[in-house]
Every structure is written in structure tokens, then in C-alpha cells.
């Protein structure tokens, strides 16, 4: 392993020189971990996450991480992540579909315990029937856990979001976990160009004393959330403490927004802000949406893109502003329930402008033509269908 020097967080994320590599999404996530000064990684393998944690295991073998082990299953892995984080170290884990659901109780307790962990979510179908193919329905289960949730479009986003996730999670006014999601296989196992920061630079180590709760060490007793659980008493005060504790978790995700602006350039990316029709998409659906916008421009149609990078905190204000004059809004997704469409509909007035689709799932790809069909419908463009056999 090369000797790595600690550099300022802002320098590494915003200013450091970059070198272009052609790598998979899994490699991009591991390259971010290499530069994130992670102390410990714990995980349980599941396709398509296995690739990422295998590569992170290699990083441990090379000396980049201090500790790494395979837990017995996801609930144990994510509980151990909580323990390690409370002990003061920087932690990383990752999972996919059924693994995320198996460990969801532990994940949902991270924000309340103020665990600044980073979680890779490499999405896949949630059984049954058993399938390992890409589908991002699992993100909808994550949305009410109190974590910051970022959704990466491609390999570059996967690198940038993962590295920035540590900087965001450990801000003293945030201090909740950050999940970086991207589509399994479509991103994790496909190659793309990624501009990487220098391999010999890494983030400063985590400072567990710069935190909104005391760390567990030999001088300070742990934040005894469970042992003297206030919420186990039945009286108004114990209800109120839990209420304001929950408020604090969600206030913390709200505060993360300013760091999302700082490190990711904002929670959304907009192309053609004066468009008549917008395609709103996150994750790799945004890549297809980007193509649809390009086709539309070639055809002289006034279509724009809103790529949603941050799902939590959800950029309601920003989306409301961009979509205020839109005639129609197309929301393509890689899941059956349309969780992004629901979020957008809840955020804007006159939400009958939203076309909830096209949606594909179960591992299906998202042809750009499906998005174009919806755009044509909104704009009243008649197209002849050609069926190629």
C-alpha cells in the first residue's frame, strides 16, 4: 500500500487533482473507502454487494483498514457497526436488497444512537421469488429510518457520494448515518469513467470527541440509551423525551442539506431549467432520463432533467421551484411502487402533472423509448411505433 498523507477534507473533496480511471461501480466505492481513512468494515456478503466488500477486504489486507470481518448475518453486522462507531472509530458497511431488510432494525436504530456510519446500498430485487437482479424497491424501506440517503447515478457518483458521505455523517450538527445507494449490476458491475482523487491522500481521521453525544471510553460512561431507558416508563415525560429525540434525528438530516450543497453541489442537478416537460429521476434511471432529454432536444422538444441526488433530506423546496412552470413531469423508476413519484407528488402543487412512470422492475432495463413515449403523450406528439423483430 502506498504511504497516504492526511489532507484537509475540503481539499480532498473539492480541490484535489483527479485522475481518470475506467472502473466498475463496486471498484469506485472501494476506491472511495481507500481514501476515506476508514478504521473498520464489517459486513455479510450478498449479491451484488459482495464485490464491494470483497474489495474492501482486500484493502484491509493491504493495510488501509485496521479491522475487517464477516459477520454472521446482517443484523449482527449492523449491530457491530453501531458498537464500533460508539467506540469512536470510522466504520463502513454495505448490503443489498434482502440483506438490507434483514438488518433494517439495526439500521433504524443508528440515527437515534447517533452513529455516523456510512452504508453502501447496492440495490437488488427483494424476494420472493428469489432473484438477484437490479431493482431499487429497498430504498423505500430506508426512507423513514432517519438516515441521510444519497442515490448515485453512475460510477463517478458512487465514488464522490461515498467519499463525501463520511464528511457529511461526521459533522457535529448532523451525526447520523449516510446511505449511498446505487443500482446493483447496472452500476456495480458495469464500468464507467471515474475521476479519482490521488491514491496517496486520505481524509483526516474521525475525531470521536467532536460529537453531539459522548463517546464510549474509559473515562466517560456510554450514552446509556438502553440501560436506563427513559422511554420504558409510562408517563408524559418519557413520551416527550422520545418525541424530541426523534425530532433531533430528523432535524439532523435536515441540517445535512447544507453539506450536500457544499460537497455534492446540491441535492439536485437540473438540465434546461426553462423546460416545458421535466423528467425527474434518481440513480441510474437518471442516466436513461439524461438520454431521453438528449433525444428530445434532437427532436426539438423542450424537455429538461431533474436528477435527484439526495432522497433524504428530500429537496422539496428545490424541486418545487424547478417544477413550478412544468406542464408535465415524467418520473421513470426501477421499482414497482414508484417511491420517487410519491415523494415528488407530495412536494409540489397541482400534482396531477406527474406521470408516475415508466417503471421497470425485477431486473428489467429501462429503455429510453419508454420515457420518450410519456414525453410524447404530454406534448401531444404522435409517433408511429416500429416493432423490430
Amino acid at each position, binding site marked *: 500500500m502506498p504511504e497516504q498523507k492526511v489532507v484537509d477534507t475540503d481539499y480532498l473533496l473539492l480541490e484535489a487533482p483527479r485522475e481518470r480511471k475506467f472502473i466498475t461501480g463496486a471498484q469506485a466505492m472501494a476506491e472511495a473507502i481507500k481514501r476515506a481513512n476508514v478504521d473498520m468494515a464489517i459486513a455479510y456478503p450478498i449479491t451484488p454487494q459482495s464485490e464491494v466488500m470483497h474489495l474492501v477486504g482486500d484493502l484491509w489486507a493491504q493495510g488501509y483498514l485496521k479491522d475487517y470481518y464477516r459477520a454472521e448475518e446482517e443484523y449482527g453486522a449492523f449491530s457491530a457497526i453501531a458498537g464500533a462507531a460508539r467506540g469512536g472509530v470510522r466504520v463502513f458497511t454495505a448490503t443489498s436488497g434482502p440483506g438490507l431488510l434483514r438488518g433494517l432494525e439495526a439500521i433504524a436504530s443508528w440515527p437515534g444512537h*447517533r452513529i455516523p456510519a456510512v452504508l453502501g446500498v447496492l440495490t437488488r430485487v427483494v424476494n420472493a421469488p428469489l432473484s438477484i437482479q437490479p431493482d431499487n424497491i429497498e430504498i423505500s424501506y430506508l426512507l423513514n429510518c432517519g438516515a441521510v440517503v444519497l442515490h448515485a447515478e453512475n460510477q463517478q457518483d458512487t465514488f464522490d457520494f461515498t467519499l463525501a458521505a463520511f464528511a457529511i455523517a461526521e459533522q*457535529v*450538527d448532523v*451525526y447520523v448515518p449516510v446511505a449511498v445507494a446505487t443500482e446493483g449490476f447496472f452500476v456495480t458491475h458495469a464500468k464507467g469513467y471515474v475521476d479519482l482523487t490521488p491514491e496517496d491522500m486520505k481524509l483526516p481521521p474521525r475525531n470521536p470527541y*467532536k*460529537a*453531539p*453525544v*459522548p463517546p464510549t471510553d*474509559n*473515562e*466517560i*460512561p456510554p*450514552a*446509556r440509551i438502553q440501560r*436506563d*431507558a*427513559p422511554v420504558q*416508563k409510562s408517563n408524559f*415525560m*418519557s413520551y*416527550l*423525551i422520545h*418525541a*424530541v*429525540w426523534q*425530532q*433531533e434525528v*430528523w*432535524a*439532523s438530516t*435536515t*441540517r445535512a442539506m*447544507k453539506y450536500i450543497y457544499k460537497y455534492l453541489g446540491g441535492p439536485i442537478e437540473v438540465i434546461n431549467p426553462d423546460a416545458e416537460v421535466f423528467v425527474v429521476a434518481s440513480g441510474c434511471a437518471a442516466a436513461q432520463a439524461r438520454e431521453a432529454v438528449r433525444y428530445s432536444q434532437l427532436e426539438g422538444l423542450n424537455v429538461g432533467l431533474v436528477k435527484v441526488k439526495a432522497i433524504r433530506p428530500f429537496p422539496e423546496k428545490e424541486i418545487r421551484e424547478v417544477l413550478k412552470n412544468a406542464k408535465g413531469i415524467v418520473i421513470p423508476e426501477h421499482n414497482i411502487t414508484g417511491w420517487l413519484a410519491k415523494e415528488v407528488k407530495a412536494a409540489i402543487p397541482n400534482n396531477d402533472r406527474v406521470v408516475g412512470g415508466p417503471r421497470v422492475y425485477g431486473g428489467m432495463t429501462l429503455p429510453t423509448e419508454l420515457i420518450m413515449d410519456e414525453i410524447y403523450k404530454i406534448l401531444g406528439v404522435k409517433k408511429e411505433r416500429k416493432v423490430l423483430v
Partner: protein
Amino acid sequence: MKVVPGPEGYIPKVAAMEGTNLPSSPDKGLLFGEEVDEEIAMREAAKALLTKPNPTIFPGPKILWGWSPTAFEEADAILELAKEIPNCRIIPMPDYRPKYPKIDPEAEINPNHPNLTILHNRIEACIFVGVHCHYANLSLRMIRAGTNCFTIAICGELGHEDAMVTLRDAHGEKIRKFKDILIQVRNELGIQWEPKLPPPNPSLPKENWETVSFHDYGEYAFLLMPKKGEIVTDTE
């Protein structure tokens, strides 16, 4: 959202989720949820401490148990500030565990039920200092929900949206600056006061260092006792 003294009601609003942002730079503070120069925030905080009944300082674990030169300096500065506030009291928040079956509200304040201490002592202006941000935020919101107390957060980190006044990056030097502004406001208001330390906490037993034993440290005694067979010859 305008962050003003309560009682706000059954469940408080969350200032951070209602559009209140923390002060954008170390020389700024929040006054009723709006960003202002810290001197302006300090003056309003001073007025509240000088004019409202039973002003009280709540020092938290970062000051009470902080074994660092910074913590020592902050503790000194807080005592200097306390001396200048007429009839000020100091009630510690020594830890964050809920105190059941019943807290002694004259002895301490607790983030799980802070309004018991506020209401029992009829405190209408208070300072949180040296409290970890998570627990300070819980306390500030519960106090705003159920009492009419004017809350001031002197924070070593980034501040607190739910206090009526918040100062950020506040350590010894800034606390002393606040003390100087408080003396200035006190003089402007014509309040006569000879600096003196607050009274000792009436609920705490006097400590006798000649008879103190490991058992007085209760469940934390293991932190002090050497392991079996270990002979400690050198200490810090």
C-alpha cells in the same frame, strides 16, 4: 420560525425543520431564530439574565468532567460570569441518565425531564453550557414546550436553533466577552451588584476528602481501582 419562550404546547416545533439555520460563522449568533452579530445576541441574553427571575447556569459534562486545559478555562470563565449575574444559581447537568423514581430538582437538571428543574425552581432565564449538542437540543425543545424560560445556549460547536439565544464556537474567551457585555448592560440598566459566587448547591452533601472511599464512586469505582495484583506506582 420565531424561537420565543414558551410554553409552546403539547409538542414543540423543531426550529431546524421550520427553516432556522445555525449561525453561519463564528462571529454570528441566533436571536429568536434569526442570525445576528454575536454582540447583539449577547446583549439580549444579558438583558434576559438581568431582568428575569431566578437566572441559572446549567453546566454540562464537557465542563464538569472535561479534563483538558480548554475545559478548565471554560469552567473558570463560567464562574466569572456567574459572579456578575445578580442572584444567579448554578445547577449542574452531571450526566444524561434519566433519574428515576424522582430527580432532586434543586440538585441537578436532566435532559430527559429538564422542565422539572425549571418549573420547581421557577427559572425564567437559563444558560446551557458544556452540554453535548444532542442532549442540549432535547432539553431546549422540552423547556420551550412546557415552560416560559428564556434559554441561552453557549455552545463550543455550531450552536442550537431551539434556544432563544445561541452563541457558537464559544470557549473561555467568548464567555468572558459575554461577561463584559453583561456588566455593560447591567450598568446601563442601573442594577447595583457586587460580584460574588452563587450559593453552594443546597442538595449536595458536603464532601469529606479524608473519609472518601472507592464505594463513594458507586458503579464507577472500577475506573479507579487497580486490577487484581496490579500495583500502580506511577500516576498522571
